[in-house]
């Protein structure tokens, strides 16, 4: 069955979650375009989740985003609606497109909704048993030709498909958050996967405007394989420095260096908060279960979860408190597990002492934001890291250690066969994590 035929009936399970809602949006828009281009058949997108509230929020989200998509793609819409004499204005075409997007959506709380689907996307919570349970039920219900794409970021696909009796019909299709924006899809092809599914997965990526990076079917794949090890290095550094400067100071220092010295969009602890400390812990445990890697654990993470400090985001996308408390998206206080409270940053107090301990930033005109749009990015990165290399400040020392650990994690992924090539790891970090450069580089 060709992709355009499969797009006539698609389901998303876990549609209202963080990843599910983005995947649902992409598919809803794609199906609307498909319906406009191919008026022969009917198109259905089944969005399945466990709560009415979540599904209602999902519909609102899709509607609002579809307006923006239509506005951005107004030239395309004018072509598609050229024959519709009743649609004259941009405004009328935007409204009609949004209507088209919503028209094909069915929402519901039961997996039954996916019975006739030719393509099923699974974006449920990252737990082996839950995903296997869903897939087993779908295996009984759906036709033999149905293909399944799972958004798991860590659980081996071969394992999931064997356990659920769907061998050959499941592929790993790991979007990055937020799926509607991020260009990367990590494609995890397990052994014995149907060649038709592999071809379809890559054709779909092209239609969705995504770049595919292949990863081997080893727990954590490339993205989490690197992120977990990178995060554990940051956690280890904070614990090491805590003895010298105190815990909150150490967290602040390591976060600042991993953001502003390594020129990343977020510091490591802000990133863990963004993903969710609970999710970070969960991914570590999933990886430990599937690969012999007892080192993938953190007492600090376990302690924070025990104390109820979890990070993550609210349903409206606001950042919840984790390592940091946030105001307008910026860290303003650090959690101290000993005192079990947040210690506000004192710009003239301990925060300043941290700055003094780190030493001056190598070049304040160089930042992730500034270099993102710089056409001479490569040359500026070289010059910046040359300074980092020479400097003896604590900040530069931490940056060098961090870059080395990040590189080691990347090289380990290549050595383990998770990534076929160093370039693939670099692509995941630049496309999926918005880094300016890959961990395997000549800068440091």
């Amino acid at each position: 069955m060709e992709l355009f035929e499969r797009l006539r009936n698609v389901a998303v399970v876990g549609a209202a979650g963080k990843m599910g809602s983005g995947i649902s949006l992409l598919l809803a828009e794609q199906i609307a375009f498909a319906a406009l281009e191919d008026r022969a058949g009917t198109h259905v997108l089944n969005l399945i989740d466990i709560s009415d509230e979540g599904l209602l929020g999902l519909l609102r989200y899709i509607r609002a985003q579809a307006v923006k998509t239509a506005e951005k793609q107004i030239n395309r819409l004018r072509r598609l609606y050229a024959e519709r004499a009743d649609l004259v204005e941009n405004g009328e075409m935007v409204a009609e497109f949004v209507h088209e997007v919503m028209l094909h959506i069915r929402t519901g709380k039961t997996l039954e909704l996916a019975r006739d689907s030719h393509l099923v996307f699974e974006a449920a919570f990252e737990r082996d048993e839950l995903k296997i349970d869903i897939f087993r039920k779908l295996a009984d219900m759906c036709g033999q030709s149905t293909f399944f794409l799972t958004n798991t970021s860590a659980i081996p696909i071969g394992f999931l498909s064997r356990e659920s009796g769907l061998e050959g019909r499941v592929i790993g299709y790991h979007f990055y958050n937020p799926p509607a924006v991020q260009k990367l899809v990590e494609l995890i092809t397990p052994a014995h996967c149907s060649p038709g599914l592999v071809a379809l997965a890559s054709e779909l990526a092209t239609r969705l405007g995504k770049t595919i990076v292949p990863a081997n079917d080893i727990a954590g794949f490339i993205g989490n394989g690197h992120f977990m090890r990178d995060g554990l290095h940051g956690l280890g550094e904070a614990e090491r420095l805590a003895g010298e400067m105190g815990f909150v100071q150490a967290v602040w220092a390591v976060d600042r260096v991993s953001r502003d010295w390594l020129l990343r969009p977020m510091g490591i602890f802000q990133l863990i908060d963004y993903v969710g400390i609970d999710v970070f812990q969960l991914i570590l445990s999933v990886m430990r279960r599937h690969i012999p890697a007892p080192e993938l654990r953190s007492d600090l993470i376990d302690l924070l979860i025990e104390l109820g400090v979890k990070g993550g985001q609210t349903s409206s996308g606001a950042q919840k408190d984790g390592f940091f408390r946030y105001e307008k998206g910026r860290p303003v206080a650090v959690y101290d597990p000993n005192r079990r409270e947040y210690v506000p940053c004192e710009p003239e107090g301990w925060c300043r002492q941290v700055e003094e301990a780190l030493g001056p930033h190598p070049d304040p005109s160089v930042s992730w934001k500034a270099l993102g749009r710089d056409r001479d990015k490569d040359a500026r990165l070289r010059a910046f890291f040359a300074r980092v290399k020479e400097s003896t400040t604590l900040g530069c020392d931490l940056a060098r250690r961090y870059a080395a650990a990040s590189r080691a994690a990347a090289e380990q992924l290549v050595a383990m066969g998770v990534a076929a090539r160093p370039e693939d790891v670099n692509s995941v970090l630049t496309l999926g994590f918005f880094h300016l450069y890959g961990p395997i580089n000549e800068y440091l």
Partner: protein
Amino acid sequence: MKALRKPVYLAAGAYTMSMGTGRKEFDPKKARPGLEHYIDEAVRAVLAQIANPDLVDEGVIANFMAARFNRQGNLASLLAAAHPALRYKPMVRVEGACGTGGLGLATGIKTVLADMADVVLVVGVEVQNTVKAVYGADILAGAGHYASQRKAGHAHFFPARFSDRAGAYFARYGAERTRQAMAAWYANAIANARLNPLAQEFHNTAPDLVKLGMSRPDPESFTEHLNFYDCSKVSDGAAAVLVCSEEGLARLGLGRDAAVQVAGYGQVVDDLVQAPPDLTALTTSRKAVEHALGQAGIGVGDVGVFEVHDCFTITGILAVEALGLAQPGEGPDLVLGGGIARNGEHPTNTSGGLIGYGHPTGASGVRMAVDLWKQLVGRAEGFQVPLAREYGLMISMGGDDKTVVAVALRK
């Protein structure tokens, strides 16, 4: 060509800030002031320059599309809301797309010439940020022939029309030099706007304007030959000026040195439904300019400062050719040679023009007259240029060179 039957003067001009993207004050997510705010501000700034507002005999309000941008009609009456002195007096609203402001001036001039009034308040206003640009394009498409052109037209209707003109000009006279001249036009507009605190681009600090101006157009997201820098922005703003007889000027207590005289004006339209006769020339604008210069009894060489309707950079180049400052096909040479720069032979759009100051459509023609008045009477402050000659000339153009008013002013 008939000369004006009696002297007519412009005085006491003022305009508001051009609000929109680029201004630090502009936040698309927050509620913004409406038509009334801009009308009030411009009117009060004019009336503050005269001793007695009761001396205003009539009013003209120039506005293009408040009915759609603001869901407001009956603007003549709304004008009277700006000041109690305007109540129970004749007020009229005029409309001629982006040339609306010019029509407002022409109406004020005719009223004084007809001996119906000695002091006419002419106000231009447009508040367009009520909708996103993608929907504003539908509204502005009303400056073309909507019934026959909107459906087949481009999503970005007017940018595409002038993109077609740019394409035709490229084909006839060479793309590369024209493209460079368009970028130079943009750079000149922003450089001038940086001297005008009311300009929408006043806060622009981009280091390499020519490089921006040379950005490659993206036909998929915008148009074939124009990039965003080639376009004037979406603007909210108002401008106002008094059109007076000699007696009116005296009655207001304004000296002759505070006023400029209308030496001549040309008001011309072409058939809205037809395609322009020549995409590489502003044929209607040319006729309006000839009329204004003829009535004034001068040549373009007598003019020391210009305001042209650069809704797009290519329009600016076509306009200097329509003025007769350059032969057809040689506009780019004039621009690239610095001929329109503030220290050049023909200082043009000295406060930023439509690209630099902003383009609140109905206000633009009035704003041009106010800027020429400021230059000629020496009140342009930060953007004042030394005057080599005592005349100023403006083109206010509506639609695709369809409704045009050219006005020649004398110090």
